[in-house]
């Protein structure tokens, strides 16, 4: 018998009108099976079926069947709302596990509906009472099913979106890999939860869950607590770990501390430090290696919050020989050193110094090709030098060219002096003495010998050196502000103090700025405005309205602009909370305040990729009457989108073809900011045409942006890097090129090789937390359009690309690890042709035997020591600091010897491998290839299997997630954990 099929549903539809209920049921049942084919026919009979559903005499099952049928027909008709409401009527007949388009579509619809009801309810603070219980039931059924099927990530996603924290908890607790699920959850809550408040609820829940676990993952807990801004919680965890008898736990505490520091949340870190309880018994004073803080400040600011040495109060008490307390005290000292950020800064400094690979020949070429009388290019060269050597403390170029340098006058002199601050960034111990020759003398005002420009610059430089770690220098800078009436010095001091006190919200300092502001001098006022923002960053403080009022009062555009940016900074990361202020600013008559409004949008929603913010910015980008506002609006997109850099090129691609050069410029910088350090191919393709734009300043912006994107890439990873370098050289050498683009090219050369080719620009930490300092740095940097000295702010965004492993003593031991990729992919760019003094001897890639490495290393080591001693001697401060240094390097030698003693392993590594020695340069893209050696003495802190050798170490690092690579800075931790984690992320995002 041939396959027979019905050709019409007419017969069954007719049966619906039969009087016998069994016949109706038969018809419904069959129609339900045939609806996929015959819905057009059935749709004409929907009223009849609806009436069956509403017929009370009909039995429940049949009514539900009718509802299901109607729901399906409505689904095919595209009436999803009706479809959903009937599906709800179908009760249990609506099978959430069915694998059909209908069910999938309706479930998605149901979840959307439910989620939007729940969030509305949450926003209006009313109960979820008006939520249809049937809808709730469906969603719950779905959640339960996901959990039962082991689709935990799906369940968590839905639970989070629907604000069902109870279900979220259930999903997490039931999952087979709780730690994995939790970290996925944290990830999701950062990337997909838009409301700040709700995100906090989620994180709070996660913390609770974490704490219930038998083996809590303290690292993650502390990260969460940091988002929640709960220093008490972190402090008590740290204390617990420190007091533990197990050395591993203490190591873990150190690792936590390093991770926290990486997020650069100064105020929070200070709070944590302040809350760590002192040891019960006293330890001897010398155990505090306070030598890191310049001595002058140690006396002056004992009242500052960082100085939690309550130990002093009890110092004379009994020496109880309780050994555990002694251990605790010792560890406490260490952890405070880490939390203060000094440890990381010191390590970075050493790393950048010892691995410095900057190419002086490039600078020399620039210097020679730049016309003497062109002061813009002249100072651009100075900026480029500063950026190139940021944090390396290498000022050879300046020293060799003192004559040339002295051509800088007035503000150029200011920047030249401030450039020293960038070069010595993080040189906390000697910063002050380095700058001493330029600082205002005697504190009595302008009486000193130097010009106010270099004095102001020196104060600014101090701020740069101490950026975000200004405990030691604050007091000095405050005095400088108060004791001068020269506006140039005030300018420098305000910027310096703003940097040093970044985000501390200190009222007294605010008052200092206010008095500088109220002098109504344009130059000082601008800096004061910006610095108020720096000081109050992310506090959403009331002060913003005060600043806004003054911005309306004053006549000086510079001051208004400074204040506008300052106000924007105060709302950093506050998301919806900032909406009122943003509204107020974007509606202002004054274009400068609207311009500030753009920054406020950028910063309040920085890294959230919030659709509303993007929409608003795009609107301003095309509709505002002021070019400044339009430019900034486009540029601001870069900040909003930096957490999803892949999006930016797409979003701004049309704008980059705008007829308006300001918009094109903004588009270039937006890409530069959000894709900084990624080397993303689309970004480069977008910027390429802009680098040969017809308008000079667009070229400038594009060159700078390109350099930001390509920082640390070499030709092996993208051939366009080489092209770009040659293009820069051509522009710089071309006599007829416009000054603007020439300046752009010079700066770009600087950024491309920033920090001795060992730093990249990174706005997110490895836990996806925004790095406040970096974001703020780039925001202020982008002001260089109006005020060149602000270029130096870019140094705040630099993060060293280092892998540094530490041992329990927080020393850097020598050990080897493996980079599982061709060395040529990640090596330094080749030095420019003519051999120069820079000893950038690159080893031939394939043959990297450890012994050769070790020799090179030993040589460097020697150089390092020598130069440290030299600088120490030269700077005439042979006090405690250099002693400390000497000790450190001695110990290093000890370590080195230990290593030498070990037999060489892995005789001939394959050319696809490379063996690196701690500490090493590991650039972001290389991160995934890094592995610790199997037989290494060191294992990362966070791996479960500890080695017998007692020196495990905190290897630091920045673990990266798989789907957006950033990079690698490691202060202590574990490669292995890293690779686990990335694997997990892959799974998470795959499904």
């Amino acid at each position, binding site marked *: 018998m041939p396959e027979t099929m019905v050709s019409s549903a007419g017969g069954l539809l007719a049966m619906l009108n*039969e009087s016998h209920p*069994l016949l109706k049921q038969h018809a419904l049942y069959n129609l339900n099976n*045939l609806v996929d084919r015959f819905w057009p026919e059935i749709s004409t009979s929907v009223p009849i079926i609806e009436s069956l559903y509403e017929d009370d005499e009909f039995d429940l099952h049949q009514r539900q069947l009718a509802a299901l049928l109607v729901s399906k027909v409505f689904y095919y008709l595209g009436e999803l709302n009706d479809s959903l409401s009937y599906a709800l009527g179908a009760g249990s007949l609506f099978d959430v596990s069915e694998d059909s388009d209908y069910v999938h579509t309706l479930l998605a619809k149901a979840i959307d509906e439910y989620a939007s009801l729940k969030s509305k309810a949450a926003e209006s603070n009313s109960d979820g009472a008006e939520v249809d219980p049937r809808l709730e039931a469906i969603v719950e059924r779905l959640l339960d099913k996901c959990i039962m099927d082991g689709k935990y990530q799906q369940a968590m996603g839905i639970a989070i979106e629907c604000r069902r924290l109870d279900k979220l908890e259930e999903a997490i607790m039931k999952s087979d890999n709780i730690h994995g699920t939790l970290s996925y959850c944290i990830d999701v809550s950062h990337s997909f939860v838009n409301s700040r408040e709700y995100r906090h609820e989620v994180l709070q829940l996660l913390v609770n869950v974490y704490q219930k676990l038998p083996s809590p993952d303290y690292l993650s807990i502390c990260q969460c607590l940091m988002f929640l801004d709960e220093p008490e919680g972190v402090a008590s965890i740290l204390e617990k770990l420190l007091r533990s008898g197990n050395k591993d736990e203490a190591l873990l505490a150190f690792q936590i501390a390093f991770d926290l520091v990486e997020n650069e949340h100064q105020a929070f870190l200070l709070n944590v430090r302040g809350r760590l309880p002192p040891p019960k018994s006293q330890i001897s004073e010398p155990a505090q290696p306070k030598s890191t803080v310049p001595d002058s400040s140690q006396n002056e600011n004992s009242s500052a919050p960082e100085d939690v040495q309550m130990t002093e109060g009890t110092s004379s008490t009994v020496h109880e020989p309780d050994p555990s307390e002694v251990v605790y005290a010792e560890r406490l000292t260490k952890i405070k050193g880490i939390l203060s950020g000094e440890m990381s800064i010191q390590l970075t400094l050493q790393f950048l110094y010892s691995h410095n690979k900057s190419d002086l020949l490039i600078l020399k070429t620039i210097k020679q090709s730049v016309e003497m009388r062109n002061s813009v290019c002249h100072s651009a060269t100075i900026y480029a030098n500063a950026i190139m050597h940021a944090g390396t403390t290498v000022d050879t170029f300046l020293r060799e060219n003192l004559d040339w340098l002295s051509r800088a006058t007035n503000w150029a002199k200011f920047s030249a002096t401030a450039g020293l601050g960038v070069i010595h960034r993080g040189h906390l111990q000697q910063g002050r003495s380095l700058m001493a020759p330029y600082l205002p003398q005697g504190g009595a005002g302008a009486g000193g010998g130097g010009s106010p420009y270099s004095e102001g610059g020196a104060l600014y430089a101090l701020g740069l050196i101490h950026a975000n770690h200004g405990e030691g220098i604050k007091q000095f800078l405050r005095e400088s502000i108060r004791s001068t009436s020269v506006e140039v010095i005030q300018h420098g001091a305000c910027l310096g103090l703003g940097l040093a006190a970044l985000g501390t919200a200190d009222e007294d300092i605010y008052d200092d700025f206010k008095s500088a502001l109220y002098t109504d001098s344009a130059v000082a006022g601008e800096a004061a405005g910006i610095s108020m923002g720096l000081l109050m960053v992310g506090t959403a403080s009331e002060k913003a309205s005060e600043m806004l009022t003054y911005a309306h009062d004053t006549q000086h555009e510079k001051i208004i602009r400074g204040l506008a940016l300052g106000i924007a900074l105060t709302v950093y990361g506050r998301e919806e909370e900032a909406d009122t202020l943003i509204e107020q600013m974007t509606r202002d008559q004054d274009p400068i305040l609207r311009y500030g409004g753009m920054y406020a949008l950028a910063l309040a929603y920085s890294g959230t990729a919030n659709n509303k913010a993007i929409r608003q910015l795009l609107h301003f980008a095309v509709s505002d009457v002021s070019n400044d506002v339009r430019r900034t609006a486009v540029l601001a997109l870069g900040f909003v989108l930096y957490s999803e850099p892949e999006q930016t090129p797409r979003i701004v691609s049309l704008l980059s073809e705008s007829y308006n050069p300001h918009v094109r410029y903004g588009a270039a910088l937006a890409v530069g900011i959000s894709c900084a350090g990624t080397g993303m191919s689309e970004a480069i393709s977008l910027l390429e045409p802009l680098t040969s734009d017809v308008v000079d300043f667009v070229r400038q912006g594009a060159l700078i942006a390109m350099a930001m994107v390509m920082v640390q890439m070499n030709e092996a990873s993208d051939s366009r890097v080489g092209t770009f370098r040659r293009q820069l050289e051509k522009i710089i050498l071309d006599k007829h090129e416009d000054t603007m683009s020439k300046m752009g090219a010079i700066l770009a050369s600087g950024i491309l090789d920033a920090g001795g080719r060992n730093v990249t620009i990174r706005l997110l930490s490895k836990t996806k937390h925004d790095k406040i300092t970096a974001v703020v740095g780039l925001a202020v940097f982008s002001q260089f359009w109006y005020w060149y000295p602000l270029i130096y702010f870019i140094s705040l965004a630099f993060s060293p690309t280092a892998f540094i492993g530490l041992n329990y003593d927080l020393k850097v031991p020598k050990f080897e690890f493996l980079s599982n990729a061709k060395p040529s992919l990640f090596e330094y760019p080749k030095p420019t042709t003519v051999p120069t003094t820079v000893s950038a001897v690159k080893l031939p890639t394939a043959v990297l035997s450890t012994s050769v490495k070790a020799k090179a290393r030993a040589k460097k080591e020697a150089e390092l020591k020598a130069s440290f001693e030299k600088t120490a001697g030269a700077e005439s401060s042979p006090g405690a600091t250099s002693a400390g240094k000497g000790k450190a390097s001695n110990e290093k030698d000890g370590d080195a010897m230990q290593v030498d003693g070990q037999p060489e392993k892995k005789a001939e590594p394959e050319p696809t491998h490379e063996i690196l020695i701690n500490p090493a340069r590991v650039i972001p893209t290389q991160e995934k290839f890094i592995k610790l050696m199997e037989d290494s003495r060191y294992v990362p802190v966070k791996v479960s299997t500890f080695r017998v050798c007692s020196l495990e170490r905190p290897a630091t690092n920045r673990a990266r997630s798989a789907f957006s690579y950033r990079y690698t800075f490691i202060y202590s931790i574990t490669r292995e954990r890293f690779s686990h984690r990335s694997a997990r992320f892959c799974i998470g995002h795959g499904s």
Partner: protein
Amino acid sequence: MDPKLTEVSQLFERFKAACTRDDLNTSTNQLSQLKVLLTGFRSLPPLFENTPDADKELTIARDVYEHAVLLSVKIGDQEAFERNFFQLKPYYTDAGSCLPQSPQEYMILGLNLLRLLVQNRIAEFHTELELLSPTALEDPCIKHAVELEQSFMEGAYNRVLSAKHNVPYKSYDYFMDLLAKTVRDEIAGCSEKAYDYLSISDACQVLLFPSENELLEYIKEEHPEWEIKNGSVVFQKAKESAPCKEIPSLQLINQTLSYARELERIV
């Protein structure tokens, strides 16, 4: 033989007997039971499962529905007719290939065409017609319906009424009567439009009534709004005709001009 099938055939026999006896109540009840029983067979539409007794089941089910259709004609229930016919139809169309043709098929199809004609559903009538094969069109039952429709459309109402006398089956009578009424309604509708009034005798002739009484009866039931005055039937045309709407020419011109203006601006 499957006991269910036996049960159905026995019940069917009784049902047929009741039909012939014209015991309408019993037969209706039995029919309903039969239908319920039929839902138990999985070989029937829409499932068409290939069960061992499929042929027999299909045949008996078709017979049941054919009788159901005829029964509804007998009762004069058009809705039931439609319902039963639709349920029957899959047996002709979809199961046609695996069953011998039913002797009653054309008769019932013809009946259905007639029904559509009566209900003045001309579009559906033609749809059905298009689905029929050329052989079917040759069948007297179908032909009859087709000719009726043609006469109907031409306005040859007298031919329609005279066709009543040569129906192929007795069961057609019911619909033929109804058709006469449909025709009359048509005529009445046309007359309303065409005349202001008609004399009663003319009206009788036009509406094809043999006597005045029947005409008056008809007017009372169907068109109470018609008035009988002075031996004439007065239609209410004047009252109904709504004034023709004016064309909003001025507004249209204005709009068109403004579009043109704006287009120019955009370009």
